[in-house]
């Protein structure tokens, strides 16, 4: 109906909403490619449903809230697979009794988002299936992200002594049939790749129902960030996801640069793009070896992959000095320039990787047992993938070709030609194909960028500012579409820092995949989701 250019222009959506919901809309404005709509709190669900059906906005990127002194401001971001426009619904709720209608009835992806907002701000969502605290234990008092929150003493010492069993909650809630068993695959378990708990209801050897419990390393990064200055938060966001920390602190510095209105020099943008793509390769290698270790090649591919990763870590060490937590990019550019001889080493390592890739493919796809373990296991059809809010490789494996680097190009992805790796039937095997394809694409991107790096300064000196305003930047993290939203209110530290993590949404799709599935498939399904608990628990 509307052509591509019209769809790409936020004005079109604002005019449509105005003449559809004239009375309910308080104010509309365009910020960058965001179409921002201020709505009364009672009709948020109505506008969201209309945006989903008519304007076909596909998924909620994130839901957050800002604690202004007199009211709580709810902010919803929705993304559109066809156009770079982000549709933002904002509404004001009063602080003492914030109640709003839940979107889970027509958008199941919003389920966990609303639970997080209930946990952090105490916003009650009517009609939400199980509105329970997500990160913090159930009997925690107070809502941490509110400005007037004073942490009360949580009795963890008594809990430790009395071996407090947290599954009283499940005993009365889930009536177990006689031939069923409730298994906690507890926080310390080899296949979980991190500290979260997978509660599984098992009848014989097949799983009836499975749901994750998270929050075991929730450390309140957003609350801590409100106490630190802008350049001090870089090490904090650097430790969000421990496998792809480069992509997170680069996203943070890009958001702050947008807030300060600073443009990093062109050489810094080149270096950042190259380093981001290297981080994507390392992250996908770690995913591949984790899957191989879980379905059982006795760590042989696990250790070959780690040897491959050591070569990349040497490169990272030469450029920024650390192996895992890089804190490499600064506000206004990059901390240090490329050492000489680094480009040749990078070419060597990429050539080495290209020589070893077919060997890893042999080890995995060669054996018939791999196909037996991964073909049509944990399948997410195209509709359920979009409905459940899957992100990145999980989405592209279910035949959806959506990539932020193509739709809304940032840094240098606009003038680099690469194509999106997708696969058809959304099972563990197609996720394997998507990620292996993405590694090849990343190698292509780096090879295009290497010989075109311009000379010039790599960093622009930026004096600390006291910005007033907001900035929203989204990028393509190895796990999916990640975004950050900073609100500055004229002080040296940010008033509110929102972190949108793709692995959080991917983890919330696990209940859709664990419906009457043999017990041994849990390992393959959990490994295919590529979880990074540091980023999920924030």
């Amino acid at each position, binding site marked *: 109906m509307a052509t591509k250019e019209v769809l790409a222009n936020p004005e079109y959506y604002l005019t449509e909403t105005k003449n559809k919901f004239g009375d309910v809309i308080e104010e509309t404005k365009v910020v960058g490619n965001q179409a921002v709509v201020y709505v009364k709190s009672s009709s948020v669900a109505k506008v969201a449903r209309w945006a989903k059906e008519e304007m076909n906005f596909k998924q909620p990127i994130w839901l957050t809230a800002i604690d202004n002194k007199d009211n709580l401001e709810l902010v919803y971001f929705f993304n559109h697979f066809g156009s770079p426009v982000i549709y933002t619904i904002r509404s004001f709720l009063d602080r003492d009794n914030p109640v709003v209608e839940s979107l889970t009835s027509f958008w199941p992806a919003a389920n966990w988002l609303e639970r997080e907002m209930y946990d952090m701000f105490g916003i009650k969502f009517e009609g939400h299936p199980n509105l329970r605290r997500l990160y913090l234990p159930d009997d925690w008092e107070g809502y941490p992200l509110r400005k007037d929150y004073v942490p009360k003493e949580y009795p963890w010492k008594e809990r430790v002594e009395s071996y407090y069993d947290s599954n009283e909650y499940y005993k009365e809630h889930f009536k177990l049939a006689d031939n069923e068993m409730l298994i906690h695959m507890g926080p310390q378990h080899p296949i979980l790749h991190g500290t979260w708990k997978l509660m599984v209801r098992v009848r014989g050897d097949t799983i009836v129902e499975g749901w994750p419990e998270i929050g075991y390393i929730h450390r309140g990064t957003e609350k801590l960030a409100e106490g630190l200055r802008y350049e*001090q*938060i870089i090490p904090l966001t650097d430790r969000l996801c421990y496998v792809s920390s480069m992509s997170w602190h680069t996203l943070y510095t890009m958001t702050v640069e947008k807030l300060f209105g600073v443009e990093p020099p062109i050489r810094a943008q080149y270096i950042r793009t190259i380093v981001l793509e290297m981080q994507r390769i390392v992250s996908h290698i770690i995913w591949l070896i984790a899957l191989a270790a879980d379905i059982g090649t006795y760590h042989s591919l696990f250790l070959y992959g780690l040897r491959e990763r050591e070569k990349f870590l040497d490169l990272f060490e030469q450029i920024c000095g650390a192996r895992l937590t890089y804190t490499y990019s600064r506000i206004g550019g990059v901390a240090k320039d490329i050492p000489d001889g680094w480009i040749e080493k990078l070419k060597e390592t990429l050539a080495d990787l290209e020589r070893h890739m077919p060997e890893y493919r042999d080890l995995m796809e060669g054996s018939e047992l791999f196909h037996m373990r991964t073909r049509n296991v944990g399948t997410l059809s195209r509709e359920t993938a979009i409905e459940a809010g899957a992100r990145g490789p999980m989405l592209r494996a279910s035949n959806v070709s959506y990539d932020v680097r193509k739709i809304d190009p940032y840094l240098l992805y606009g003038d680099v030609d690469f194509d999106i790796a997708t696969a058809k039937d959304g099972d563990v095997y197609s996720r394997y194909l998507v990620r292996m394809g993405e590694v090849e694409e990343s190698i292509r991107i780096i090879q295009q960028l290497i010989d075109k790096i311009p000379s010039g300064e790599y960093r622009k000196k930026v004096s600390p500012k006291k910005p007033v305003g907001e900035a929203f930047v989204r990028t393509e993290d190895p796990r999916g579409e990640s975004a950050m939203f900073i609100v500055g209110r004229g002080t040296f530290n940010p008033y509110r820092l929102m972190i949108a993590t793709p692995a959080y949404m991917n983890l919330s799709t696990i209940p859709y995949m664990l419906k009457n599935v043999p017990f041994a498939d849990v390992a393959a399904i959990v490994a295919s989701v590529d979880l990074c608990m540091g980023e999920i628990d924030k």
Partner: protein
Amino acid sequence: MTNPIRVIIRMLRPLKATGKYLVKKPFTVMYPYEKLKVADRFRGVLYYEIEKCIGCGLCVRACPNKTLELVAPPENPDLDITNPKERIKARIAFDLGHCLYCNLCVEACPKSCLHPSHEYEVMSLDRFDLVMAPEEFARRKKLSMEERVSRLLDSQYLLGASLGGHYEEEINSITSEYREVKKKMIKNEISYDEYSAKRKELLQKAINIIKRYNEEVHK
């Protein structure tokens, strides 16, 4: 199902992939005997050149995790760091347990007297070994635990926080009490030897607390 013969032939490929490594040289670096050369930008434990330092405290402000703190210099332990004119002579104490190796302080220092060394093999049985007084931080002298506590007695934050918040209130009360006594001595409301007697008594209390921490919690 693809025909079985092709499946069996394809099944041999993983064997080839793993078998190749039987003849290759292992990738291991025999750690204690041959050490890996570290990149020259590697951010190891910090190194502090004490003579270039002007006591401006910019690095203390830049650190996100409060690992550095201005403390009386080695040559004059009774210096009063509260008033700005004397602070020029104060030097930096450092807790290796807090440091994040992010090197924001290295960039913040105008005189560039803080820079990362290539040392990474640090291991300690005793939590309090990781706290360094200025001369230890500059690799000048190895202090025992008692001397280190006496050097750090007038730190506002570092001594208490370095024990992971176990006896933070008691140690902070000791250090604040010591600072009042020092202020009185500077304004010479009390005599020097009365001040040093009080200092010795407070020092002994702090050492007992740290000893208790080592016995009860750590071992």
